[in-house]
């Protein structure tokens, strides 16, 4: 294996391949920054170019575009609330509020550092254990995915602000309901499509995120802008970029979060049935669940942890998704499916023997990821002040631009003009809900987990012939369910403890 790694290193540092890393990261970052256009679009654009390259260079280029796009996609999430791709939807939850408070530079820097850490730790874990991790990919069955999604849903508490628990739950249910629209993925039956052809494929996650966050936010800002002439005059002043530098306290706050989320994200990425988007939601929820009461209040308002967690997780997950791709030949997502197609077109069949049969290729891709993350950090950090200037564009120009980019971004993925109308309708509904103070994030959580929750539960039931025994028979399933129960019951237990203590004190006071 060491021989392979060394020869892979030799291949990875060839000038041609270093150039490919650089090109890939550059192209990925820029396409990723455009709202809605994520890694799939970026890679699809690069495919014709890779036909003329040798396999290592071609794959290093495409891998660079892939994690580059996820790296870059955070910028538009933070600056204009329009997620660059579905994996950075969670980044908007705390990234945008932070930018709004005048810390855009800091938010971009935190995202860059967290992404870098996630990507680098992911690459290191790949390097050490890629062949072994294939077993992790295959250890998950439908029942386990189901339990993982249940655990993910328990994070809904994490999205509920103070006194908003009921509203958060209602929005989660709305998300779960929206996930059932379209052709049922197990039975092939149409549900809630009302005979409308455009609903047969269901709603796209990115469309919902874009409509409820980017569109609704910009339109709300127009409506609110006019309420006070003095205020709108004030808002035309350049928005503070804020310092890019992090204080020691901030670094200390984000370091453990980044580390935990990188590891969590990586392992979720390794699972062929999950991916970077799920990873970012799970990491965000996990951080919120383990935060103390003081830190919890920060979430959704520009929390450093809330920003670092999804950014570290999505980059680690995109790296982790190379495990099933390279060691099993199984694509876990649309993006890795395109990468698999590219590998096959070079006549290379990925599988358990790939690191033996093509050591050069296998290890050079992994090592190039390490370089790639350094390149991305060097590329992105100096760009921050310029990127943040977006916020200085006068709003009468900025707002139409955001609307245009968000809508074209969604359209260019589906090429269905009806999507634009659906977006507008969702946006109007979202604005009404926002005026009524309903949080949007739980709806997206419910939507993204809902489909997988249902599919996996139904598969698990089919496989167990309708018995629920898988819940206690499969250790992975059981542990996830127990952790969920602990999370859900902990506030109740804490409340009981407080009461018990209080009554004890009363008793003690009486006696004394």
């Amino acid at each position, binding site marked *: 294996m060491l021989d392979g790694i060394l020869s892979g290193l030799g291949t990875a540092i060839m000038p041609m391949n270093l150039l490919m890393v650089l090109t890939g990261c550059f192209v990925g970052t820029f396409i990723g920054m455009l709202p809605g256009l994520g890694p799939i679009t970026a890679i699809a654009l690069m495919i014709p170019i890779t036909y003329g390259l040798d396999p290592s260079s071609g794959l290093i280029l495409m891998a660079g575009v892939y994690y580059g796009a996820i790296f870059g996609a955070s910028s538009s999430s933070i600056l204009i609330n329009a997620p660059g791709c579905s994996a950075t939807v969670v980044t908007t939850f705390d990234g945008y509020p932070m930018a709004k408070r005048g810390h855009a530079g800091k938010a971009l820097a935190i995202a860059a550092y967290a992404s870098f850490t996630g990507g680098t730790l992911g690459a290191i874990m790949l390097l050490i254990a890629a062949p072994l991790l294939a077993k992790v990919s295959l250890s998950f069955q439908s029942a386990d995915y189901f339990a993982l999604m249940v655990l993910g849903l328990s994070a809904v508490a994490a999205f509920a602000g103070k006194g908003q628990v009921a509203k958060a739950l209602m929005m989660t249910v709305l998300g779960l309901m929206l996930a059932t629209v379209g052709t049922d993925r197990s039975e092939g039956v149409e549900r809630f499509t009302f005979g409308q052809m455009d609903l047969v494929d269901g709603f796209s996650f990115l469309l919902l995120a874009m409509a409820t966050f980017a569109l609704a936010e910009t339109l709300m800002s127009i409506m609110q802008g006019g309420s006070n002439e003095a205020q709108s005059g004030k808002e035309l002043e350049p928005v503070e970029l804020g310092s890019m530098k992090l204080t020691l306290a901030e670094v200390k706050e984000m370091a453990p979060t980044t580390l935990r989320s990188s590891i969590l994200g990586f392992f979720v990425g390794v699972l062929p049935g999950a991916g970077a988007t799920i990873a970012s939601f799970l990491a965000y929820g996990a951080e919120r669940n383990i935060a103390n009461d003081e830190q919890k209040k920060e979430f959704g308002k520009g929390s450093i942890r809330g920003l670092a967690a999804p950014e570290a997780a999505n980059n680690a997950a995109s790296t982790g998704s190379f495990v099933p791709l390279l060691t099993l030949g199984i694509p876990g997502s649309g993006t890795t499916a395109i990468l698999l197609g590219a590998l096959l077109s070079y006549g290379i069949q990925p599988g358990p023997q790939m690191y033996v049969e093509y050591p050069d290729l296998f290890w050079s891709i992994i090592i190039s990821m390490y370089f790639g993350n350094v390149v991305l950090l060097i590329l992105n950090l100096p760009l921050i002040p310029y990127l943040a200037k977006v916020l200085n564009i006068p709003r009468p120009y900025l707002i139409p631009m955001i609307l245009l980019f968000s809508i074209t971004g969604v359209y260019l993925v589906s090429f269905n003009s009806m999507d634009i109308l659906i977006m507008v309708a969702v946006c109007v509904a979202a604005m009404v809900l926002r005026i009524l103070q309903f949080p949007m994030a739980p709806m997206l959580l419910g939507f993204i987990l809902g489909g997988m929750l249902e599919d996996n539960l139904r*598969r698990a039931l089919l496989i167990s012939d309708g018995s629920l025994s898988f819940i206690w028979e499969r250790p992975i399933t059981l542990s996830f369910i127990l952790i969920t129960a602990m999370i859900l019951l902990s506030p109740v237990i804490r409340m009981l403890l407080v009461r018990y203590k209080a009554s004890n004190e009363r008793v003690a006071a009486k006696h004394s």
Partner: protein
Amino acid sequence: MFKAHKLIKALVTTGLVVASLSSTSFAQEVHFLIPGGAGGGWDGTARGTGEALMKSGKVEKASFQNMSGGGGGKAIAHLIETAKTQEDTLMVNSTPIVVRSLTGVFPQSFRDLTPVAATIADYGALIVRSDSKYTHWEQVVADFKADSNSVKVAGGSARGSLDHLVAAAAIKNEGLDPMKLRYVAYDAGGKAMAGLLSGETALLSTGLGEALEMSKSEQVRILAITAEERVSDAPDVPTLKEMGNDTVFANWRGFFAAPGISDEKRDEFSALLESMYDTPEWEVVRARNGWVNNFVPADQFYSFLENQEKVVGELMKELGFL
């Protein structure tokens, strides 16, 4: 106070730009209409065909238009509605057009279009993990007879779609009840493969192309394929037919023109596609994608589709989908 006029202004500006983006010109030699988004199977087939035709100089220019929606139904409706301006358009499609017309997902069928030709095909394959106890299809049949619940078959699409139909047909042609087949649906071929490898299902019904790639890395074993006779890429893999099971099934991909185009124009398209097979440019595209040539010219394509509709329709009726 809400500033409604500002809001409307912003919406209108955006709308205009979007509208101008989505219009396409039709003055092309061949215009490919793709009923799905970028990166899918239909997309690859149309773009690969267009690339071969253009690079070999068979056509001056090929243009492509993606139009997703309705599982492909949107593009069919569009082609019919705008038929008069779609003289040079070829829409890519495949076996699902037959299945989805039968189930009513598409209100139209191939009869509402002009079938031009089928160009490539992929056979069905039934595969197991390489460490599975099954080494022959007959063992699966025996187990199914003993306890039909013990044989779970995975597939990368919903019940009633191709993967399910192939497995059900194989069971039916053994004289067994296909309704008893436990089919586990996944939302993508890769996830179904992961399901098989994780051991949650015993069998996987998939395309031969994907099965061959996975068997090269020795992770899976192909028990049987649905070809008429053994294929040259996998001479050791038996067909169901030689085991006395009459399941023969090919998932074709091909092209349709707008309704009402002249027979000459249709035959011209068909001849154009036929002439593509001898070009080195097509061979590059074919090999890159691992496709199997399977040409069905215009004069046979219609009856081929009718026949497939009949076979698939009967099976779906038996399975309770119709």
